[in-house]
């Protein structure tokens, strides 16, 4: 699913809204998350997951093609950790799929 498919699905489900408004809503949400991360804040959406910024120290890396040593500067990376509910939904698949629950219920 792409951003435009997401917008199209929401438009079908909400015929009382203009597509332009739905585009604004979708952009507001993802821009809002991006801006919070850019400020160094975390975004926590219970049941869905949490977006956080992780810091990576500078390290000595290598050009994978030539093997030349290169210096990798310290940097921040966006990270998403799926929430419990979403993790379980992804692992078990849609409830409609009979028998899906038997697969991979494990983990520790």
């Amino acid at each position, binding site marked *: *699913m792409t951003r435009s498919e997401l917008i199209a699905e929401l438009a079908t489900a*909400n015929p009382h809204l203009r597509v332009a408004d739905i585009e604004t*809503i979708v952009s507001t949400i993802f821009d809002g998350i991006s801006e919070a991360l850019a400020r160094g804040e975390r*975004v926590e959406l219970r049941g869905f997951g949490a977006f956080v*910024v992780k810091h990576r120290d500078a390290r000595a890396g290598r050009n994978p093609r030539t093997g030349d040593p290169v210096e990798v500067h310290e940097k921040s990376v966006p990270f998403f950790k799926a929430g419990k509910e979403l993790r379980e939904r*992804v692992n078990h698949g849609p409830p409609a799929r009979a028998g899906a629950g038997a697969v991979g219920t494990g983990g520790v």
Partner: protein
Amino acid sequence: MSTVTRAQLAETIYGRLGLSRNESADLLEAVLDRVAHALEAGESVKISGFGTFSVRQKGRRVGRNPKTGVEVPILPRRVLVFRASQVLKAAVNGTEAPAGEDEG
């Protein structure tokens, strides 16, 4: 460090459009639910300029209870991975995204 939650995101939607607070919150939920629904079906979700959520199939492996050291089988499972777009990666570093690399 402060945390942004549903409430703030819903409030931003409320402030930007002429919707009620309730409807703004409902629409935020609808967006998250659509994304979750696609992932649940094993589909990737690609939000341009933000990132891609995809589902990865993990094979069976032998794990270990870190507390007791007892071996336990970890069954095959599906896990969610998020890959941030170049734009988002650049944003958290306070830099500009490389031109033409808004792939995801």
